[in-house]
């Protein structure tokens, strides 16, 4: 079984850099995409097992991207990152179809644990739309 593939959608180069370095070191196949607009295209067809999605991108809102992903029937795992920690924002993200949610700054260990937990969901069932 090949290494699980992860797409990091993050416009902050420094954050993208350490995530990429750290996750690669853990054995994941990591790619970085700084533009939100490119995400849907890159993820389509199950190219990645998991997307780490920054909530605030210069060209798009993470929540919108997630909603559109789910609307297109894509079940790729989504772990959302945000620098805002209001409960309402966290709920927004989860309602939009994110599988997990993490607030910056976070412990790298925790990120790893959550990624592992998500990936353990063996063959996730085909998702119906969860838009509300």
């Amino acid at each position, binding site marked *: 079984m090949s290494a699980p593939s992860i797409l990091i959608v993050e*416009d902050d*180069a420094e*954050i993208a850099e350490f995530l990429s370095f750290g996750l690669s*070191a853990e054995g994941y196949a990591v790619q970085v995409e700084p533009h939100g607009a490119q995400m849907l295209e890159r993820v389509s067809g199950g190219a990645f097992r998991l997307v780490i999605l920054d909530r*605030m991108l210069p060209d798009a809102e993470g929540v919108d991207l997630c909603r559109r992903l789910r609307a297109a029937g894509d079940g790729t795992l989504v772990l959302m990152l945000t620098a805002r920690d209001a409960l309402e924002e966290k709920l927004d993200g989860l309602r939009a179809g994110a599988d997990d949610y993490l*607030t910056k700054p976070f412990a790298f260990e925790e990120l790893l644990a959550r990624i592992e937990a998500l990936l353990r969901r063996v063959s996730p069932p085909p998702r119906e739309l969860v838009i509300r």
Partner: protein
Amino acid sequence: MSACGTAPTNPRQPCDDGHGRDGHRNRNRRDSTVGDANQRELRSSYEQIRAINFIAAWANDYSEQVAELFILGTDETEIDEAREGLLAALAVKADLVAEEIAYLTDEEEIAGEQDELRRIEAMRRTLDELDLARRPIGPLLEEGRREEAEAIYRRDIEHQLDAVLGALIDTATEIEQDEVMEAIAGSMVLSDQMRGLAIALVATAALLVFGNALMVQRAISRPVAMLAEGAEAVARGDLSHVVRLERDELGMLAARFNLMTSQIREQRDRLLQAKSNLEQQVAERTRELRARGAELEAAVTRLRELDANRAQFFADISHELRTPLTVLRGNAEVTLRSSDSTPERMRQTLAQVVRKADQMGRLVEDLLFLSRSEAGTIVVERKHVDLHEVFAEVLLDSQSLPRKAGITISPQQTSDPAMIEGDAGRLRQAFLIPLDNAIRLAPEGTTVRVELGVADGRASVTVRDEGPGFTPEEAERAFVRFFRGATSRGRSGRGAGLGLSIARWIVDQHGGTITIGSTPGRGATVRIDLPLAEAQT
């Protein structure tokens, strides 16, 4: 009213003593019973005095009826009756004198009686004049021209009655009295008839006194009536009413009365003033309260906005601090975690830690600066500042700013003096902010132009880049805290979007302006304008 209270329709000789006015009957009796010359003389004088007395009484009645026009209205029939009565009394007197002349033989005495006839004629003429003069009074009163009517009364009626008619009556009375005294002195025998005549004479004298009293009463009743009228006017609320009298005691009374009226008027005016002040105060307070209400509403709106802004501000701060912290912590953890981290990786991580610490330190400083500027605790010096020196320092500082590769800074500086009043340190900070933004955000290989100029009493510092520029909407929001243009969102740069807010605050403190001019895709221009020091302008 007539003096003894008889009905106004017959205000005749007020206290008729029973002798009536038919002197002819008395005269007949006299002729048949008295032969003595002295007795005849006495009787004649007695008749004459009675006649004069009637004249005086009618004159008084006439005057009173005219005066009553002012109080009771303009019914003039009683005046005419009084006039007729007066004319009749004058006729009786004239008859008596004529009889006397027929009787007398002494030329000197005849001449005296003829004088008396002339006096009676003078009285009649005076009466005609009076009656002519008083005619306008009624119409004037009806038209409400009271003051003019009063003037006529005082000048033409009252004065004429007292001065002319009164004097004539007095003269006639004196002469007759003298004649009576002569007759008494000349009489050798005091007969019963003489005694009776003497008694009648005393009664006549009493009557004369009474007649004079009537004259006096006219002098009193009119002023009293005028005072009563004044009191009535005051009671009606006409406080401008003035009672016009000059006579001594009554004059004083009138003066007192007028004083009282004016005091009441002053009090009323003060009350009205107080009332009007009160109303004005109430109106003012109402206005104030209304304005206060509007202010409160505006304040509540402002507070709500502030509250929303504050919530946004803290969310933004939180974001701005979390991002570098995420990099710091994440990178450090990842580097530590990896067992095969190379020294090179370690060095990179540590360098990044220093950069992030610096970035956060600046952010904290900027936040503190803004917080203090709001609290008013930042001291801005007022000294002579040479902008040429400040400009040179800014250029030096810019050498150490992080910048993209190949960016050229092109300075330009006027040769004109550029002295202003202000704080050199703060100005340097304000100039550096747009320059820092420009060289951090401009595309590689472009030129940033920075210029110091002087024109029209103002100095200007302009920073022009060839970067992506701002949309008008972005240019407007550029001074809002934490705002960053869409294309400058690369978070690796420092700058949390507080710089232009700080620059604007500093420029404001110097009475200057900071503006952004830009066309998207064709670069941005940040221009700071400052007023030159007075001495230089």
